[in-house]
């Protein structure tokens, strides 16, 4: 089975301190640690496990700057056979739609049975690129998938719906599946793997190689333009309990006692 995994190199923000920069349109990224997008991590693992079970190969692909190479190398070390980076000055500022158009041009030239992406990215959170890409390629898709099986030319997947319910869907291959976290347990990279991955080639393709025009990508080719960023409003005014750990826990205990909760 020939599998392409689309991955994104993103800043880790779940536990990081985020500040909006002077332009008011971006966040400061200098102090942030970048890594593979959490959902893509599971997508990559799923691709590698499928390859190990069914044979074939895995190609990892990303849109972005050279800095994404560390994430691509991680993919190679974890079992991807090839890595492709789609990079061009003209791609900067692309939204989910423009990003899907870039991926489409690269993927339509390749053989594939299955395309995997993360269900969403931890930065923009569009949850849009995979399904847009499937439409551009003219292949069926299923999103937020927690289980994948194959029989013949059919993929049988479990989609995660609200409240823990799942829907089982069958699709004809080739197909695109967006992967939900928790579908598998992403492996750790062996030192041997990293060493091998360092010598592997990362293929780089730009605007011209992909046959794209400048106004199809970047800001010009996007649906969305960021006007400004701001800190979200509070829903409730929180009272921050100050003091030493001991003082703080005494305060919490007092509150619980006053409310009759202990």
């Amino acid at each position: 089975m020939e599998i392409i995994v689309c991955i994104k190199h993103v800043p880790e923000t779940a536990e990081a301190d985020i500040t909006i920069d002077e332009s008011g349109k971006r966040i400061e990224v200098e102090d942030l640690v970048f890594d593979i997008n959490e959902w893509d991590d599971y997508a990559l693992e799923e691709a590698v496990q499928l390859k190990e079970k069914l044979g074939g190969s895995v190609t990892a692909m990303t849109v972005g700057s050279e800095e994404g190479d560390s994430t691509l190398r991680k993919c190679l070390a974890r079992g991807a056979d090839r890595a492709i980076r789609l990079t061009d000055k003209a791609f900067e500022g692309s939204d989910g739609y423009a990003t899907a158009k870039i991926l489409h041009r690269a993927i339509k030239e390749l053989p594939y049975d299955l395309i995997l992406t993360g269900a969403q990215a931890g930065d923009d959170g569009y949850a849009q690129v995979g399904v847009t890409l499937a439409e551009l390629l003219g292949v069926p898709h299923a999103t937020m998938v927690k289980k994948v099986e194959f029989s013949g030319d059919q993929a049988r997947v479990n989609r995660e719906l609200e409240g823990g319910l799942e829907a089982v869907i069958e699709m004809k291959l080739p197909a695109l599946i967006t992967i939900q976290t928790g579908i598998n347990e992403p492996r750790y990279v062996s030192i041997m793997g990293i060493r091998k991955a360092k010598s592997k080639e990362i293929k780089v393709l730009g605007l011209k190689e992909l046959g794209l025009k400048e106004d199809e990508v970047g800001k010009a080719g996007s649906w969305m333009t960021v006007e400004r960023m701001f800190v979200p409003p509070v829903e409730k005014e929180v009272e921050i309990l100050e003091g030493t750990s001991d003082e703080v826990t005494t305060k919490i205990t007092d509150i619980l006692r006053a409310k009759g909760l202990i």
Partner: protein
Amino acid sequence: MTELFVLAEHRQGEIRDVTFELLTKGKELAKKTSTDLTAIVLGHNAGNHAKRLADHAKRVLVIEDPRLENFNSEAYQMVLSQLISQRKPSLTLMGHTAFGVDLAPSLATELNLPLATDCVDLDFEGETLTVIRQVYGGKVNVKARVRKSEGYIVTIRPATFETEEGTPLGGKIVTIESPLSEDIEYKRFIEYVQPPAGEVDITAADSLIGIGRGIKDADNMPMMEELAATLGGVLVCSRPIVDKEWLPADRQVGTSGKTVKPKLYIAVGISGAFQHLTGMKNSDLIIAINKDPKAPIFRVADYGVVEDLFKIVPSLKSKISEAREAHT
């Protein structure tokens, strides 16, 4: 008159709440832009759905077909792309749900209509559409302008707008013949799989200790179990804990888990992705412990502690233990 579409979402015979939230917002936008609010429902034996929707819209368009009973993006897209091409609504709203996420991007791409996903607000400023979205796990909001177009598609985060019951609008119900002529070629809905019932019903507990990514390591789980036991509460969690299998799926609070409303919710090491907040923000009393003062969990909490949870939890456990002993 131009129309504003709200796409109804239903599953297993029930209209989903998000539909009425969208109709409430849709009504406001339709009024502002002098357009007609039209609810769209695709389904099989959807008459009862249509009647309920008629209270909330000027018009209800019903597309009846057995192939539309259970959501299948391929069939839904075929129907909706025709309907939108013909009637050219200024805007089509749907939920940013398992339904909308699977449908909106391919539909927008086919129709070449700009799409804005997971929006928490939207407005027409003159002729352009602007939206508010949350990025970086809810730590930052973005105001974005959507490329000018004769129509837009927007997916809205569930539980963002409150449903207003208001006076029934008595919308006209119009049934449209299904345009599905041939078989659905690529994709088939097979069945629903219900989650297994858990050992504990977390929605019935008075006190919940919710844990998240900040717990760092499975070795720290006993400490959290002890805190919950001391408090006489139940240990629940956000998604990463279930993904790591440190707790079973029936302990998950949030969009893909359960919605809870206990007397007390103590969030420990949870930053507060919206999927989690949606499931617990209506708890009576929320106390959040997180080292990041900007964590979204503090925006829904009554009391907050900005500190390393490992410094707080042991001390809190012994204080609660003392208080309970003194009490008995």
